[in-house]
């Protein structure tokens, strides 16, 4: 896939995602359902120029997460990740 090089890291989305996740999402490991890679969410390629946030796998560029916040409603789609593993301590 040839996407423009205007993505950021998972880190850049962490402030917005802190509205949802009680844990630090950047250090959480997510498994991509498309290519099977397990990486820290901080390593995902994040696109923030649109109306929401799109996080893509840094290996296969498929969509891991989408988050849109509009008119006091949030929409979160996570179908590109089979799991997120994080520290609970």
């Amino acid at each position: 896939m040839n996407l423009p090089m205007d993505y950021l890291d998972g880190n850049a989305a962490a402030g917005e995602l802190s509205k949802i996740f009680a844990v630090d999402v950047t250090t959480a490991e997510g498994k991509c359902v498309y290519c099977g890679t397990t990486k820290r969410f901080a390593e995902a390629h994040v696109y923030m120029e649109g109306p929401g946030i799109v996080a893509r796998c840094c290996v296969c560029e498929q969509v891991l997460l989408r988050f849109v916040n509009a008119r006091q409603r949030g929409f979160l789609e996570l179908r590109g990740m089979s799991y997120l593993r994080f520290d609970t301590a």
Partner: protein
Amino acid sequence: MWRVGTVIDLHDETSTARTITLEVPDWPGHVAGQHVDVRLTAPDGYSAARSYSIASAPNSEKRVEITVERLPDGEVSPYLTQELAVGDRLELRGPIGGWFVWRTEQTEAIQLIAGGSGMAPLMAMIRSRTAFGNTAPFRLLYSVREPEAILYRDELEKLSNQDRTMMLAYAYTRVAPREWPRPPGRIDAALIAEATWPSKLGPTCYVCGPTPFVEIAASLLSACGNRSEKIKTERFGPTGGKK
């Protein structure tokens, strides 16, 4: 959760970059490399948020410094660099992120690579190392447009002059000082080989800058034999997201 910080100092680093020091009474403390989101709200309720890396070392004074580069058509940075005054208040969310961080317990060799204002979180790491008396060997490769665009220049030079385990190399992309050995240009394999730790030392590498810069630096580090899990990156873009 948004916190309120009061501006206690403003300092121009270059003709386009300003450091803002905030005092945040309920600041929980941070780790070098983390960032904050800054939110500005207009009287009509319109708000805009941007991310800025924290440039200051962790401290007990509830102080947070960010360095903001003014973007000519920016929505937030012209206000922060030209209109904000001491005593003004800003809304902050953070500290954010536990991945792109350097902790004072780390003792391995550290390779820092900064592109432009990507220097800010790496400066927090350098300041943190100094503040906590850590002696891990640090090496910084700082790629910048021209000598006048170097952030924290005096502090960096003082530190590297005083401390042999803090090595500093500049690379210029547009204008180099007179008789500088390397012509201005993008970082390349020869520069990485000359100005970074050999991969056999197993350094942890922190790369921060605009996305294309980070892509190049990370792939050059990787081509030199650094393992991908030892290369941590932080990218920023000119609008909307991280800056």
